[in-house]
């Protein structure tokens, strides 16, 4: 029963809070230090309970209650929200503490008086002084910049794979985000990995112990495109030392799309022909397009109204089954290898329609590399069809423009 009671309370509390916040403009301005809780007997004159919790002075009326007009209208300087458990609304009898308030402490207008006048107004509801007209209940007070209805273009110049056991990827991504609501957005994005290769670890295994990852486990992602949603379940702010304010949001994203994959057939090698050495670049085989899932999370730190920095970790998940390389399956490779061994032409071989036989025939005019030598390597990749679900977890560092 307890969980259901909690949920019911929560369901009831959220709209209530939203209502209370939404009604804020009609209310008198927030008293400073309006966080969630206030002590039952708020009295700024009391010493702080804990020496460690040294906070600056809460809102202090600079005038006596008697001097205040009955109707509050002019907004007081709105304090931020970091006084959490301190009395946030001064009692009528409150006097300024002996300590001089800091320069940035919010101050009520001289003509304004505290308005917490009766027990009902001081009553706490779920720890919040909801009936106190001087208190606008916020945890982290209103976001300085609203996102709803805004477009956001995000460029991630550097996308670096962080879980590369058998593969390494480095790329660039571009995302477009439309903020449908304050904390819900639609996104589409694309990513191109301008570096995707097998890891040094995999090459070390090949070199030292003649082992390597299964083809499906070392599948490389060339590019990906996906669409999905983004939510910002929480936001906050922070100070770097005491100098500057930054507003940030936790962003969580999810989506689906498609990605193009490839596999290393042969690493870079030196080819010696007639006494001359040619550097032959690594060769990759096309392993087709795969379904792509995307989940991620990170921080968006906003600077001003139009700019933000994003630091995120995203996982591109794709299923990998390698049974064809450059469209050729095992039977194709067997036929090609037999023809190669017999030094026969490939024309007339009974190959599958998708097999790009031209990629395994002929000699590269620049490096003099005979492509037929790669047939055996291609066959090795599909000899034991392998499948895996790959998680390509990358760190995304980028900046965005909101408009």
């Amino acid at each position, binding site marked *: 029963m307890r*969980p259901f009671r*909690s*949920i019911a309370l*929560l*369901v009831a509390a*959220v*709209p209530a*809070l*939203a*209502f*209370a*916040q*939404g009604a*804020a403009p009609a209310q008198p301005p927030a008293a400073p230090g309006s*966080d*969630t809780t206030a002590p039952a007997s708020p009295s700024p004159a009391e010493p702080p309970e*804990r020496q*460690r919790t040294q*906070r*600056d002075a809460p809102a202090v009326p600079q005038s006596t209650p008697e001097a205040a007009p009955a109707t509050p209208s002019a907004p007081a300087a*709105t*304090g*931020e929200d*970091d*006084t*959490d*458990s301190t009395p946030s609304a001064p009692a009528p009898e409150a006097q300024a503490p002996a300590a001089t308030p800091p320069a*940035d402490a919010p101050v009520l207008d001289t003509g304004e008086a505290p308005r917490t006048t009766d027990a009902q107004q001081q009553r706490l509801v779920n720890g919040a002084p909801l009936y106190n007209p001087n208190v606008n209940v916020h*945890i*982290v*007070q*209103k*976001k*300085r910049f*609203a996102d709803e209805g805004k477009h956001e273009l995000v460029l991630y110049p550097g996308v670096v794979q*962080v*879980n590369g*056991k058998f593969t390494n990827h480095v790329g660039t991504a571009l995302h477009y985000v439309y903020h449908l*609501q*304050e*904390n*819900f957005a639609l996104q589409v994005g694309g990513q191109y990995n301008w570096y995707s290769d097998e890891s040094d670890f995999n090459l*070390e295994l090949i070199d*030292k*112990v*003649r*082992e390597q990852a299964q083809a499906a486990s070392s599948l490389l992602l060339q590019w990906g495109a996906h669409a999905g949603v983004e939510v910002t*379940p*929480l*936001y*906050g*702010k*922070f*100070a770097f*030392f*005491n*100098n*500057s*304010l930054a507003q*940030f949001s936790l962003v969580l994203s999810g989506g689906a799309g498609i990605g193009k994959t490839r596999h290393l057939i042969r690493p870079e090698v030196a080819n010696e022909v007639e006494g001359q050495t040619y550097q032959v670049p690594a060769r990759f085989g096309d392993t087709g397009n795969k379904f792509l899932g995307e989940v991620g999370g990170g921080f968006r730190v906003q600077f001003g109204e139009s700019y933000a920095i994003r630091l995120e970790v995203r996982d591109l998940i794709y299923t990998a089954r390698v049974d064809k390389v450059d469209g050729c399956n095992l039977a194709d490779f067997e036929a090609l290898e037999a023809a190669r061994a017999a030094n026969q032409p490939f024309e007339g071989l009974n190959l599958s329609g998708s097999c790009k036989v031209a990629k395994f025939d002929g000699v590269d005019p620049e490096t003099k590399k005979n492509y037929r030598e790669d047939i055996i390597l291609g066959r090795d990749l599909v000899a034991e069809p392998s499948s895996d679900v790959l998680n390509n977890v990358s760190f995304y560092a980028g900046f965005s423009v909101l408009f």
Partner: protein
Amino acid sequence: MKARTLRVFAALSLSLTALGAAAQEDGVLDSAVVRNRLYKPAGHPELSLSVGLPVQTHLTAHYFFNAGLAYNLFDTFALEARAGYAASRHTGLARSISESFLDREDKRVTDELEDMWRMGLHGVVGARWAPIYGKISLVADIPVHFQTYLWAGGGLTNLKRQSVIQCTQVVDRAAGVCDNRTAVDDRGSATENYWVKESRVAPVVSAALGFRFFIKEQHGIRLELRDWIFKDSYRVNLLRDDWEAGNPTGEPAGSPGLTHLVQFDLGYTFSF
């Protein structure tokens, strides 16, 4: 546990419905920074306990258990001593390599694999710099104060290494057995193995990026991404005939590089 999970999910679901957004209409607030910090750790010692899990495993996996004692010189700066033990093991990949390589007699000269040292007891002293203090609104009505910090320091660690290449006494080459198990398929019955083992004590450097979330006055939760770095060491040009005869072989690698053990640390902090 179920109740808590339900509460969290319910709260999260509600927060995602953007009900709160209605309350965030167009009001622009003053530009005050996070004012009046609720938690000021300056001048207070603190005790912390943490558990570290590997972010990624190749041939070894480590699980760190640490205790730390820190003193906050300022709100943003502290000195901390950490000590603990890292439980470690070979991964399944390492075991698979060790078993298959026994039978790969075509490879008679090779090098040891990199990054095979495993940490044990360790102790480091470092500095923690927390220039960022902030707060977040957690599920709409729970304020959470936090610090973001960088940690750097150094110390000593006990290291051990067990080869997956050099077996000094091959029991069953085809089955990849290099121990005294009672049955070929009963790995658990082995009480001793014959892989080449080494140990040493070496300097270690540690660096971390972390978040410290304050819970009430004296408690805190720390989340860290921590890297343990020490110099690698392995032998090259090993001869199969020599190592299988139980003789030392090869020579130390010229530039073995550094080993990084990146961990995700979850910790608890008590401030006095």
